[in-house]
């Protein structure tokens, strides 16, 4: 059996039985990167020797009979906005091109403790702002299914790396759909956990009340395994909740009996591609055939989600990104007139278009005279969006919807129209506003040969239910 293309559980089995060493396995993925990444460009950086050294250490550990972590020997790609001590963490921005963090993000510590092989750093939209990975200051990542199309974003590098078989696992971050949308475009599984389920310590902040780190994998089981490793309390993120982490992989194959799935008319309205709609409806038929009940629900405020998000997220971003001042770390402009001009020139030269646009929107919406009309208003609507979900989940166990209105779009087709790009996130960003978990799983293929995903949403901290529901569908479509 070939290594590349195997599931994480198959790989773990081969490693445990000694059929394959971690060095052999890592080499196979490095070869796949060498073969595929010149076209896909998912990785900003990877270091073959470093990856093999890590693999050798894990093989030695196994040979000496030491206890091994839950990911022992599995390669993981990390989105380049999670700090790794001693290695560049650029956020795909000129501003942080030379930034080398003096500490590890919590999730990176967890990966090391779990004996994962850190394969390399995945491309993203600059500071995770975007839906296509075209906003990277360094390179444009291509969809592994068709290089003319975008991989989605902002975790486009992570999703494309898994989709092209260059790594079995990857970490992304999701502020408005940035894991689920690229997972859908690249035909892989991607999950945004509940806000507070995974520590954000060491994740470079974009919008702190919305950002959440999550797993991407080729299948639901790999996703569950990676979540199990990164989830759980960390005192260094005061919003990270102190709740026990279930062993998601243990219960995964048990179907949910009496499952009730909600569908909202608002998710099937104007603008939804007919192939995406029929894919989601066929998935619902699969669930019905497994004994699930499908029930109509209403999320009346979901039509306001994009507007709410594109006030809240830029406001938080403008505040978070004020730290890039050319003084403490990062880029500083070379010529300027005085201190204020140094700040402005540094930021003008260091940030790309989309980051500037969001800083401008946020600064404006928070400025004197506009705060109540924009920011406070959006926070109030945010509560109404959350209350829609609370009401819906009183009647249903999970909510099913499309992930995106269309399959992957062509590279370059939306870059000049920010609003059209923002509307890509129509179905995903409500989960970030409400703080609930969501997963994207492959559900079909368009006539053009591009993957189409299915999104499932669950109440806060019900990741176990979400993964089991996702696995039911996956098992049936195998």
């Amino acid at each position, binding site marked *: 059996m070939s290594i590349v293309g195997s599931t994480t559980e198959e790989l773990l089995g081969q490693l445990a039985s000694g059929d394959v060493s971690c060095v052999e396995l890592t080499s196979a993925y490095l070869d796949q990167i060498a073969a595929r990444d010149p076209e896909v460009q998912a990785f900003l950086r990877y270091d073959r020797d470093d990856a093999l050294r890590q693999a050798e250490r894990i093989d030695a550990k196994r040979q000496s009979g030491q206890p091994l972590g839950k990911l022992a020997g599995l390669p993981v790609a990390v989105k380049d906005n999670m700090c790794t001590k001693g290695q560049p963490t650029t956020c795909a921005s000129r501003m942080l091109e*030379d930034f*080398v963090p*003096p*500490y590890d993000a919590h999730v990176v510590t967890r990966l090391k403790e779990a004996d994962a092989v850190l394969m390399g750093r995945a491309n993203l939209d600059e500071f995770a702002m975007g839906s296509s990975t075209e906003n990277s200051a360094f390179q444009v990542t291509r969809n592994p299914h068709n290089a003319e199309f975008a991989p989605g974003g902002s975790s486009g590098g992570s999703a494309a790396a898994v989709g092209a078989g260059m790594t079995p696992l990857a970490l992304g971050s999701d502020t408005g759909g940035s894991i689920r949308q690229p997972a859908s475009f690249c035909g892989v599984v991607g999950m945004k956990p509940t*806000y*507070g389920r995974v520590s954000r310590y060491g994740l470079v902040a974009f919008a702190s*009340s919305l950002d959440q780190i999550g797993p991407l994998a080729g299948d639901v089981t790999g996703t569950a395994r990676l979540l199990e490793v990164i989830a759980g309390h960390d*005192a260094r993120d005061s*919003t990270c*909740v102190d709740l026990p982490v279930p062993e998601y992989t243990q219960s995964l194959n048990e179907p949910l009996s009496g499952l009730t799935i909600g569908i909202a008319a608002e998710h099937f309205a104007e603008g939804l591609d007919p192939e995406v709609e029929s894919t989601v409806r066929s998935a619902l038929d699969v669930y019905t055939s497994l004994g699930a009940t499908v029930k109509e629900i209403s999320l009346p405020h979901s*039509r*306001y989600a*994009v*507007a*709410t998000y*594109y*006030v809240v997220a830029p406001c938080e971003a403008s505040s978070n990104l004020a730290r890039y*001042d*050319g*003084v*403490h*770390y*990062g*880029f*500083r402009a070379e010529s*300027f007139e*005085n*201190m*204020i001009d*140094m700040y*402005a*020139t540094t*930021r*003008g*030269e260091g940030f790309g*278009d989309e980051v*500037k*646009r969001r*800083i*401008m*929107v946020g*600064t*404006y919406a928070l*400025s004197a005279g506009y705060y109540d009309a924009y920011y406070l*208003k*959006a*926070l*109030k*609507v*945010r*509560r*109404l969006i*959350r209350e829609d979900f609370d009401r819906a989940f009183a009647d249903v166990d999970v909510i099913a919807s499309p992930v995106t209105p269309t399959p992957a779009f062509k590279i370059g087709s939306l870059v000049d129209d*920010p*609003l059209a790009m923002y509307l890509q996130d129509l179905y995903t960003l409500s989960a970030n*506003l*409400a*703080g*609930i978990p969501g997963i994207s799983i492959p559900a079909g293929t368009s006539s053009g040969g591009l993957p189409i995903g299915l999104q499932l949403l669950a109440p*806060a901290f019900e990741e176990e239910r979400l993964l089991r529901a996702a696995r039911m569908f996956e098992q049936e479509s195998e």
Partner: protein
Amino acid sequence: MDRQQVEKTALLARLKLSESEVVKFTDQLTGLLDYVAILNEIDTDDVEPMAHAVEVSNVLRDDEPVASLARDDALSNAPKTDGVYFLVPPILTEG
């Protein structure tokens, strides 16, 4: 949003914009703010603002001292430093 507001916002945000960026952002931000105006359709008079998804408050850690970042580490990414301080352009001039 007019040109003057874009320039004022850029000053507040400490962002030096080129002439073409000012023109582009004036147009794009106007479009975005027009779109955002749909929020005014909703009556939110009696709604509490929701700043965070998990509404926890006063999260405290144990009051035990822990090491902070060593000075060399803290300065290691500074664009300009003398090894002890972050260096910035002069902010006071002799008068």
